[in-house]
């Protein structure tokens, strides 16, 4: 077995050194009835690298990858070009195969990267501080709601109807067990975010208002008024960003008064990966830092006075506080955070702004092109790189039909909101720098044929 260095001579010598007669003696504490006498029947035996690669490659080929044809899927996961050096660098064994930096003297590489990541994310989201990552955007969103409860000592969160429905589902699942009250609604298929309804809903029991920016239909709006209204009732504004590239063009939620900004880092450096692993982003104002979940890296000095970095404020965390911790999170997404951090470093402010502008311009052009298809109506008028169109029929079968033609046309709202017939004709279309204009034409022509 190629991954096991011990030879049978080694095993014999080691058993002799230990004073054990056989390997079975080492499992003597396992009750007789629970010991398996040999390999579990019905499972295959070991296989060569070539055979395993062949097996997995055959499975990979049964999937329609984003690069296989015209591609317009978004809704919480976005296709962007990731520079080749990102993947090279995260495969450095010293990053890839390191553990959580519990011994900082020999983990400065990971720790400094975490510090840089925290600094980049805080600036990108417009906040004072950020942590070293959560599992993903959806779990970060729930953690923000739980944190708002700890900060305000109130248990009612108002969730915007524009919040990703999976994020809403996660929050509902958790709230069922924690006793938090969530106010939720399905979105209306219209041009404006639901801020007016949110403003009406804020009251003295509200812990936080949770608003996605851009929202699930791609819409954007100014969060300042929401922030002011929340603060007037001593509630927090939680903003959720599932497409961080947008913040190269649009004001950051923190700049508009959001107290906690969470997000999904996937679109910078991480890749699609069928939904995970991704990188949850979590940032907030400085005064809330001791209520934050997750790992934090901080600057300090070593015994010779040299700058160095350590995990810090760990009295918030489970390995110290056990049942009194702010969260049970332990392992997070550091390697994905590294990928995102490297991509942001390659881009820099200029690159990020250019990338965002290109995304937006491509999406505006694509929206105009699709709106010319007979029967299609553009729903969203203010958006970043993702917009919603209304088809003259249910979108879900159309998406399936176009997939059969090699085009991944977008995410049908029927898939995300199966119980909302009013949304069934909605199709969310994402356009990035990876989308050639010819692919938009191909989509428009295919839609025209299918809808005819």
């Amino acid at each position, binding site marked *: 077995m190629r991954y096991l260095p011990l030879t049978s001579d080694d095993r014999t010598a080691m058993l002799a050194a230990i004073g054990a007669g056989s390997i079975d003696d080492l499992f003597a504490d396992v009750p007789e009835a629970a010991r398996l006498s040999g390999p579990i029947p019905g499972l295959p035996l070991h296989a060569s690298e070539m055979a395993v690669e062949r097996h997995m490659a055959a499975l990979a080929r049964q999937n329609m990858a984003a690069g296989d044809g015209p591609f317009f899927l978004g809704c919480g996961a976005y296709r962007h070009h990731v520079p080749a050096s990102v993947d090279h660098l995260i495969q450095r064994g010293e990053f890839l195969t390191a553990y959580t930096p519990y011994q900082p*003297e020999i983990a400065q590489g990971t720790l400094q990267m975490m510090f840089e990541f925290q600094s980049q994310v805080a600036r990108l989201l417009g906040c004072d501080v950020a942590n070293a990552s959560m599992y993903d955007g959806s779990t970060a969103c729930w953690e923000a709601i739980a944190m708002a409860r700890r900060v305000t000592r109130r248990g009612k969160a108002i969730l915007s109807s524009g919040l990703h429905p999976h994020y809403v589902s996660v929050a509902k699942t958790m709230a069922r067990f924690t006793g938090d009250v969530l106010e939720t609604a399905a979105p209306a298929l219209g041009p404006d975010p639901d801020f007016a309804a949110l403003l009406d809903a804020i009251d003295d029991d509200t812990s936080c208002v949770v608003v996605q920016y851009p929202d699930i239909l791609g819409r954007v709006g100014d969060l300042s008024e929401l922030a002011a209204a929340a603060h007037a009732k001593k509630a927090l504004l939680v903003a959720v960003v599932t497409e961080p590239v947008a913040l190269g063009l*649009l004001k950051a939620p923190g700049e508009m008064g959001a107290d906690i900004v969470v997000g999904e880092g996937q679109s910078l450096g991480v890749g699609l990966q069928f939904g995970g692993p991704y990188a949850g982003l979590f940032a907030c104002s400085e005064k809330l830092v001791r209520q934050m979940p997750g790992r934090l890296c901080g600057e300090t000095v070593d015994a010779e006075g040299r700058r160095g970095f350590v995990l810090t404020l760990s009295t918030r965390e489970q390995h110290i506080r056990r049942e009194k911790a702010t969260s049970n999170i332990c392992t997070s997404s550091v*390697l994905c955070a590294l990928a995102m951090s490297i991509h942001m470093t390659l881009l820099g402010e200029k690159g990020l702004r250019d990338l965002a502008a290109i995304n937006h311009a491509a999406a505006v052009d694509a929206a105009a092109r699709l709106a010319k298809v007979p029967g299609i109506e553009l729903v969203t008028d203010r958006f970043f790189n993702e917009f919603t169109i209304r088809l003259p029929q249910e979108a879900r079968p159309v998406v399936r039909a176009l997939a059969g033609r090699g085009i991944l046309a977008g995410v049908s709202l029927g898939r995300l909101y199966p119980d909302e017939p009013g949304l069934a004709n909605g199709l969310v279309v994402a356009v990035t720098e990876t989308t050639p204009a010819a692919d938009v034409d191909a989509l428009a022509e295919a839609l025209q044929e299918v809808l005819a």
Partner: protein
Amino acid sequence: MTINQSGWRPARPLEGDAEPATFTGNRALMLEEPLIFEIGSGATTGVDFDAPALPAGGLGGLLRTAPIGLPGLSEPETVRHYTRLSRQNYAIDLGLFPLGSCTMKHNPRLNERVARMPGFADLHPLTPVDACQGALAVIDQLAHWLVTLTGMHSVAMSPKAGAHGELCGILAIRAALDARGEGARKTILVPESAHGTNPATAAFAGYAVEDIPATPDGRVDTAALIARLGPDVAAVMITNPNTCGLFERDMKTISDAVHAAGAFVYCDGANFNAIVGRVRPGDLGVDAMHINLHKTFSTPHGGGGPGSGPVVFSAALSPYAPLPFVEKTADGFRLVEEETAGEHHAGSFGRMTAFHGQMGMFTRALTYILSHGADGLRQVAEDAVLNANYVLRSLQDVLDAPFAAAGPCMHEAIFSDAGLAEGVSTIDVAKALIDEGFHPMTMYFPLVVHGAMLIEPTETESKAGLDQFIGALRSVAERAKAGDPGLKTAPHHAPRRRLDETLAARRPVLVWKEPVAAAAAAE
């Protein structure tokens, strides 16, 4: 928060430290590296774009006009920055990484190649189901292996890491109790030796946590546990093999008693590597157990994640498992999500994460499992246990091994600080191991052993490698028993000397800020 002082400051040599300072602060291959904020600029970029169009008018007041403050580097500078940083890390690729309860084993590179196949890496999570049958097949095949290896009934694949898996298991237990009208069960029993995530998870799910004591032989006090069972107890969380590296011999007895009392058994599967292929937790009466794919099944830990924590369930808990999951039908695989769950999975407690879990870890774990096969996985457990016992028996004459007399250990060997000289403690032993070129063992955990040193070599270490590690630790232990003062200032040869963690926590500097002088000059 204080303004951070950036840049290199000259070393303040410790007493008796005669090494001459260098101009750069570098020491040959040990290279100092500034922060990207100190070497990059907002105008520099390592990515070329066509000139972007001016933003369309519709966004009005939402345009980001203020500087973001993100530094950029060209590609060569970027590659050098991160390569230099990487060299300040210890890693399993460099040597033995014996962190107990962490299972730092070799990460096969075939796994990386497979995960990067475009059909997996470049696949959107909302791809229509007919167009991602291969991905669903991966999930289904891995699920089959996990269920079979554990002898359980079903598996929830979506939890993102071990602690998320614990939460998944505890929520399923609570859903099952609620369904039985037994919501009054409000207590979860957790042994003292448990990982911190166990009580944190139980508390998060709304339970009171009560400690169960350990016996002097390092196991759960079965009598105390059984005596505590009653109508208020929802579940028991047990780690098996436990964090002292010992198999809980009474597991089945405990499970039977817990079930008889109407409660459930959660097993923390962090240490599954010791028994994979040799013992099925399902045969021991376990109701739910998470499996850390980043431990037993070799997916890389990446400096702190991503992990992946699928949870296997007994038949009693399976109806409450979370969404989504993959189902095999005559027409191929389908995805059971909120929409279709009502038909035959109405008891599900809901969704734990967006999308489908850590697919990138599933491809790696399945690749690893297929490489080993049923025979190879069994050999994994045997070699892991053999290596740990070899370490235990090779060092028990020089370090206190509190449970060694009672019999063999499983996948990890535990020592205490008894016998070290006055003033020398476990952390000094750990830091001295750094100078010897090894990552230290887990320190001060579990809490039931004083000054615990928990060593898990894993099966991917050779005998020669173990012998070298044993020699190094023996040497350090002898110095520790003799009271060698050099241990207190170790490490001496790492990129950094001991770091001031108290300062970091007292005056937290969590993000980079412009140094005061530079900021003033810019105004």
